[in-house]
């Protein structure tokens, strides 16, 4: 069974690229969200196995969204992504219940599998 994924990022170029990459590696991208509110709604409806959440979103912070996604479904693997310096973000991300953190440019099957 394919791992279902929700991609949460406000940059459409990145969402498009991430979808291509994930689908090429056998993941099923069931939803995309450009902001936190949409992400929470879609997570509720779609119950993805994995949510990739950008740290900076236009409405909520990615950390807050991660925390609320885990509350919706504790089995959901929530992984934070960002193009910011990972050293600055990892310690904060750990407190949210997110499984981990992947720098956007290093997004790959290997990086994702580590958290599933």
């Amino acid at each position, binding site marked *: 069974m394919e791992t279902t994924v929700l991609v949460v990022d406000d940059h459409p*170029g990145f969402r498009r690229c991430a979808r291509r990459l994930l689908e090429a590696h056998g993941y099923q991208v069931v939803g995309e969200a450009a902001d936190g509110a949409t992400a929470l709604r879609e997570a509720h409806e779609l119950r993805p196995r994995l949510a990739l959440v950008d740290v900076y979103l236009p409405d909520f912070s990615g950390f807050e969204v991660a925390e609320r996604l885990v509350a919706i479904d504790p089995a959901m693997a929530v992984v934070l992504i960002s193009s910011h310096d990972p050293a600055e973000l990892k310690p904060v991300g750990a407190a949210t219940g997110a499984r981990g953190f992947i720098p956007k440019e290093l997004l790959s099957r290997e990086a994702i599998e580590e958290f599933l």
Partner: protein
Amino acid sequence: MSGGAGLDTSDRAEIVARLRALAEEQAALRRVATLVASGAEPAEVFARVCEEVGGVLGVRSTNLTRFEGDGTQTVLAGWSMPGAPVFPVGPDVPLEGQAAVAKVSRRGRPDRVDDYSTLEGELPERIREAGIASSVAAPITVSGELWGAIVASSGRAYSFPAETEARVAGFAELVADALASADAREKLAASRARIVEAGDSERRRLERNLHDGAQQRLVTLALALGEIENELGVDPGSAQRLLTTAREELALALDELRELARGIHPAILGEHGLGPALEVVIARTPVDAQLTALPRMRLPESVEAAVYYLVAEALTNVTRHAQASAVTVAVTRTKDIARVEVHDDGRGGARVGGGSGLRGLADRVEALGGSFELDSAAGAGTTVAASIPVETFG
């Protein structure tokens, strides 16, 4: 010595009263001067002046206000006896109509309003809202220039005797220098704070632009390169299409980085000087713009940067707000001073602090020891100008 020979009792009593009043004024002035000399915060000095004026003149409330040269005043301080009305402290208070302080700002001499109930206009309305029914104002003149005013007010109409103008004016003269010194310090501190804030805000803007622009494109590019790597052996056609997309992303990232770099500091300014840099800015201006004068020699780097940003900001304002048909830019230099003037034939009415970016320009010019000027009467075009000292050697 006979001393008071020839004076009757009432004369003597009047002289004693005058001497006592003079002594009180001198003591009040000494207290203000001591406070200024101790390096007290300007706000504290302004508040003390209001309190001392109130005490010396025996009035129920006083304000100290600074004329801003753009048709507004900043009410710097206020004092009142318990329960007495006083005009609230704050910037951007209009200076129009027949209010006492407005008349002082136009005529430069003391004036009064004995009954505000019949005056029209925003300022009289705000004065009434503050509970004030009458006031007397006197000018504060510093180095020959009208700086602001001291205003004594009352909640009752017709409450000031005839000599109030002279007494307020007398005290205003005495405290003028102390006020000017405190005011200069306050303006300097405010200007420094604005420069720091402008720098922070600019850094935040750059970070956001980098993150949302070039950084995202490079991330996408990195992911695309990974995909291309995977596709090369499997589907060369797909790899080719991805390469085209990747090249487009890279070109856009480069454009965005160039645009950002130009905003931080235009390379052409450092390498080729003001002339070529200003020509580029002028060429981008949709209004008919001419560079009419330029010094033959290069100016110091900081002066060139200040002139460049002043012209760029002024031309942006012309484009956005002035409704002008033509604009001229002139940069001249005497031995010690560089001067820049941007003049348009638009609708005028610009002011420093109106969200036009002019406040930041004024700060930049003043930080270099220069002076900033704005002449923008409604309907008469706008001239933004600055004179900046140029250090000379030998």
